[in-house]
């Protein structure tokens, strides 16, 4: 069988299955005059020498490989080093602070680091503040950002697309202090005017500002993820009679979902880590929020505002570093969960 296929390069022979049924000329001829093809010796092309790479080329490759390996490993080292140095500052209070206990630190809402009579370090209100502002920001930013990414990538014309991308990148380049100003002045007045809330700097304000800051990231990363979907998928989907929207939600979103999740996570990362804008926009009151019009304080804003006043080496100073460790752990957990979610999808 293989001999017969190897015998001829004629294209029709490759449809060999047909020959028997079609009983064409070639089939008849092929069956009668069958001869094994002459065997080439395995090293038949003995003429001429194989090209060889110079010693320099091989040494160069070693060096490049080494550099690449170092870069890869260093990423891990940096993360560990950051964790180590932050933790080193925090460790003394964790293992022997005078007024410090771990459980109240995590689960108490009472944050009185400078009280004369009764110092208390409870960060629950700050953690809840971080999470609530982030969650509100994502509720606003994810649909908006992904929608904008889909529009820019799939629906709008090439000229509008270029314009929008430039504007979105501009939006991403606005410094966070400027966003803080906008929150403090424009947004807070708007909130007071439209909702009648007593103060304009609150959870809602911070959420909106953070959403505005995360949207550009979500849009540009999300658009990249959609752009990475091969055009052949689009053509195949459309050739099957899908409308553009059907194409988006049946083909492109599933195909790009890992990239889109990465976009959302980077948005979350920005929102969790943002300091200055939330410091200015949320009202900076240590408070368990009961509604979107309550003021809150976040972990990051708390560190930024108090670290300058805490004497270096004091318990207060070290507790603030421990807050950093807590923040680090929280983002780590968020990323880990997202990673597991992706793995779960892949296995399917």
């Amino acid at each position, binding site marked *: 069988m293989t001999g017969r296929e190897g015998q001829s390069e004629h*294209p029709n022979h490759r*449809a060999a*299955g*047909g020959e028997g049924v079609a009983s064409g000329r070639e089939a008849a001829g092929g069956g009668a005059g069958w001869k094994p093809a002459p065997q080439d010796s395995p090293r038949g092309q003995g003429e001429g020498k194989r090209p060889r790479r110079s010693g320099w080329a091989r040494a160069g490759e070693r060096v490049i490989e080494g550099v690449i390996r170092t870069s890869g490993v260093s990423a891990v080292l940096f993360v560990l080093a950051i964790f180590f140095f932050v933790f080193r500052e925090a460790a003394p209070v964790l293992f022997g602070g005078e007024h410090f206990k771990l459980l109240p630190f995590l689960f108490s809402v009472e944050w009185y680091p400078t009280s004369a009579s009764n110092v208390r370090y409870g960060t629950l209100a700050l953690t809840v503040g971080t999470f609530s502002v982030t969650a509100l920001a994502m509720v606003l930013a994810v649909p908006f950002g992904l929608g904008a990414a889909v529009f820019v990538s799939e629906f709008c014309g090439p000229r509008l697309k270029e314009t929008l991308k430039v504007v979105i990148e501009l939006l991403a380049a606005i410094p966070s202090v400027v966003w803080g100003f906008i929150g403090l002045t424009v947004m807070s007045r708007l909130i007071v005017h439209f909702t009648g809330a007593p103060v304009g700097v609150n959870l809602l304000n911070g959420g909106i500002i953070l959403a505005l800051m995360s949207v550009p990231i979500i849009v540009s990363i999300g658009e990249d993820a959609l752009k990475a979907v091969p055009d052949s998928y689009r*053509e*195949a*989907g459309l050739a*099957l009679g*899908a409308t553009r929207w059907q194409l988006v939600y049946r*083909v492109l979103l599933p195909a790009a979902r890992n990239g889109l999740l990465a976009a959302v996570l980077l948005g979350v990362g920005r929102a969790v880590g943002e300091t200055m804008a939330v410091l200015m926009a949320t009202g900076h009151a240590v408070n368990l929020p009961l509604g979107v019009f309550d003021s809150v304080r976040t972990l990051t804003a708390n560190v930024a505002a108090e670290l300058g006043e805490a004497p270096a080496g004091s318990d207060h100073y070290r507790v603030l570093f421990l807050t950093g460790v807590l923040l680090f752990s929280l983002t780590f957990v968020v990323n880990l969960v997202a990673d597991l979610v992706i793995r779960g999808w892949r296995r399917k």
Partner: protein
Amino acid sequence: MNAPVRIEVRDLRLAYGTREALHGVSFDVHAHEILGIIGPAQAGKTSLLRCLNRTIDFTADARMTGSVKVDGVDVRQVKDVFGLRRKIGMVAPLPVGLPLSIYDNVAFAPRCAGLRRRDELEALVERCLRQAALWDEVKDRLHTLGTRLSGGQQQRLTIARALSHQPEILCLDEFSIAIDPVTTMRIEEVLKELRRTVTILLVTNLTQQARRLADRTLFLWKGELVELDRTEVIFSEHPRERRTYEYVNGMVG
């Protein structure tokens, strides 16, 4: 050949930028026939098919003049281009398994067309996979990714997918390049069956395949239509054009 005309192509010219790929092609396709389209590389075979369901629109610099009418309506005047594409099934030479499960791949087009009922969908998916000679190989793993199948299986998956929206016209572009001969024969049998309900355009590099299947065969050469006649005539000792004879017998091309 008194069957009604399904597709009417008149003086179709297609240019990619400044390079013209089709230089004025005219022919008819009748209902319930298999029209074989043969010709060497760069003859314009695929471009011709892509004009029919307007997937040519995806190529930004493609310009199309002349007229292509499907059931009497010019495809460029069609309002509902999605409906047009549902009417025409298309199998591309390089299989593109959508990044969905095997089941969802086949159920894609019916779902887009609005079919929601589970039992109907399941029956349809099974029928299409059987027709594409793929059912036995995948029936136990319908919900794994279609892109994990081998090349030949993906090719058959695209055939099943093209059948899934019950097209009235089926365009096959080199459907058998990645499929073994035995399976090819099974699919060819299905195509012969389908002819009763579907009009088939079969682009193929395997001239013998056109000979086995096609009622009429069209020979394209560098963007022009050399000859269109009954398949027996094209593959006889005396087609009208010398070039046809030479190509079919492997002397050029």
